[in-house]
């Protein structure tokens, strides 16, 4: 109980301190700005696409974006493009009919969250190890409480960033879509932020786990970037080389150790795959973190 309380105190202080650190704040603001700009430009693009589609389908032209999205979803070529992009029929079924801006935001959040995580949180532990600040804490609480507290604090920080950018992206969408925004858009955007938050946890575990291995903040960031790049490339390669027979049949099992393998579960609407995927991702996050912690537990500080 005492350990949990101390962990929570470290987490709150970490969150508070991270918000004050200029670097984290700059990255956070950049991420938010990118999310808003992405939404703005995507709506422009969407509007253009819709205009062309409306002309092709001989539908009435509209000034508002998203009005013909229902027709868009019904068109065979668009479905083919989406099937190609998702490579998963179940996901395609679940996202069919959703408003395009929602999906654009979701894609953005899923794609950039790992980078946000590495840039904001990847060096927090290495920084404290390098400066010696950790020495003022670990004679007061256990090393595990410190590590878990830092992790929890950064999780809160990333969640804050994602929900804030979700709300910002909604504001842009609401303004740009004028009256044509669906009533549940805000709720849905926040839901996607929540899913991206879950998706961030294994990357957070990975980046912070690696951060235990070095005293150099910049080295920790570089290691984090290499690690997420590796995860990204390995997921693609494993998917590409997987087959139903022979040794290639085992490749998807290795893929389960990478966050990318569980990403599609977070795109589902049905609770079962969503819960399973989330559980996998949370477990992966803790496993990555605890691997780094196992080294830290034995190291001199």
């Amino acid at each position, binding site marked *: 109980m*005492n*350990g949990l309380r*101390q962990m929570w*105190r*470290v987490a709150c*202080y970490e969150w508070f*301190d991270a918000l*004050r*650190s200029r670097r984290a704040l700059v990255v956070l603001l950049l991420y938010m700005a990118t999310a808003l700009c992405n939404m703005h430009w995507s709506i422009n693009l969407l509007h253009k696409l819709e205009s062309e589609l409306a002309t092709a389908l001989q539908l009435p032209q509209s000034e508002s974006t998203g009005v013909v999205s229902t027709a868009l979803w019904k068109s065979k070529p668009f479905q083919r493009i989406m099937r190609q992009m998702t490579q998963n029929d179940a996901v395609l079924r679940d996202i069919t009919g959703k408003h395009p801006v929602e999906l654009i935001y979701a894609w953005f959040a899923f794609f950039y969250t790992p980078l946000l995580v590495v840039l904001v949180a990847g060096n927090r532990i290495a920084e*404290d190890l390098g*400066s*010696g*600040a950790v*020495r*003022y*804490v*670990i*004679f*007061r*609480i*256990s090393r595990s*409480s410190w590590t878990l507290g830092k992790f929890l604090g950064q999780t809160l920080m990333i969640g804050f960033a994602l929900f804030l950018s979700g709300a910002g992206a909604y504001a842009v969408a609401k303004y740009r879509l004028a009256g044509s925004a669906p009533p549940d858009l805000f709720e849905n955007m926040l839901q996607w932020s929540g899913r991206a938050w879950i998706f961030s946890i294994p990357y957070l575990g990975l980046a912070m786990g690696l951060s235990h291995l070095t005293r150099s903040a910049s080295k920790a960031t570089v290691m984090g970037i290499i690690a997420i790049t590796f995860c990204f490339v390995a997921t693609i390669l494993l998917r590409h080389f997987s087959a139903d027979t022979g040794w290639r049949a085992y490749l998807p099992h290795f893929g389960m150790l990478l966050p990318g393998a569980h990403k599609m579960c977070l795109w589902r609407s049905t609770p079962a795959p969503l819960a399973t995927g989330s559980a996998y991702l949370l477990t992966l996050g803790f496993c990555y973190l605890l691997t780094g912690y196992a080294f830290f537990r*034995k*190291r*001199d*500080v």
Partner: protein
Amino acid sequence: MNPAIETTGLVKRYGTRRALDGLTLAVPRFAVLGLIGPNGAGKTTWMMSVAGFLHIESGQINLLGKGPFAPDVHSGRITILPQDSELPPESRPLELLTHYGLLQGLTRQEAARSAAAMLGEVHLGDRLNAPIRSLSHGMRKRVMIAQCFLGYPEVVLLDEPLSGLDPREVAHMRAFLTKRRGHQTLVISSHNLHDIEVLCDHVAFIEKGRAVRLATLEALLGKASTLVYVLTAEPADYALLTAAVPDASLAFDTASSSLICRYDPHRASPGEINNRLLAALLPQCGVITITRGASLETEYLKNL
């Protein structure tokens, strides 16, 4: 009474070099112990091992009779001022120390009160909410010292506590630490022998990862049984001096031009010895200073 810190046969290697080579040392409760030794002797390594920062290869540590350092047992009872360790730069002294107080088990009110009081004690009452990064080196050092005394811990390990402070703050800090004598166990590592002499009642000489001597300052310097006279010249007539203090032994150190008088404190008081010896000395030479006991520097150099 159990010692506050008892370390037996500590061994710690950095690569092939043995930083601690079977160091055995016991710090009595409520003692103010000074650790003295050359650079690389193992003083900092010993402190860091005691605080649980370093993993020792062999040996035993017993803190307050409860075994080696464990945060759930010793948190708030043992604190340390580590060397070369920065505080988080964006934090503010008051909130940071309150946070540390909370971590070591104080209530929010106690932590805030203790943090404000300690920062006041180290003359930082007007910089409570200034970012650490905006404080000077000396001010940061004072915040670091203040964090050691949050919640009145039983044992405080201080690695070079006075280095980097201006002379006025050094004097203030000496007074601050002296006040704690007899109430808390302090271990002070310093290269400044004058500081150790003023602050400590016990000293340990550490050489090549071993404790070569542990004694009370009183016994080491012979404060109760030795008078040291720094003279303008060597006395010409020793027979006259010996006759003045027949129960004492006299020796002259030409290097420091000092006459060292050792006497039995049970047979004569230092006042009596001093009066008789001065009466015999002054017709022969001038007396520059008279001190009780040898200087720590002399004793330390003698032990090397």
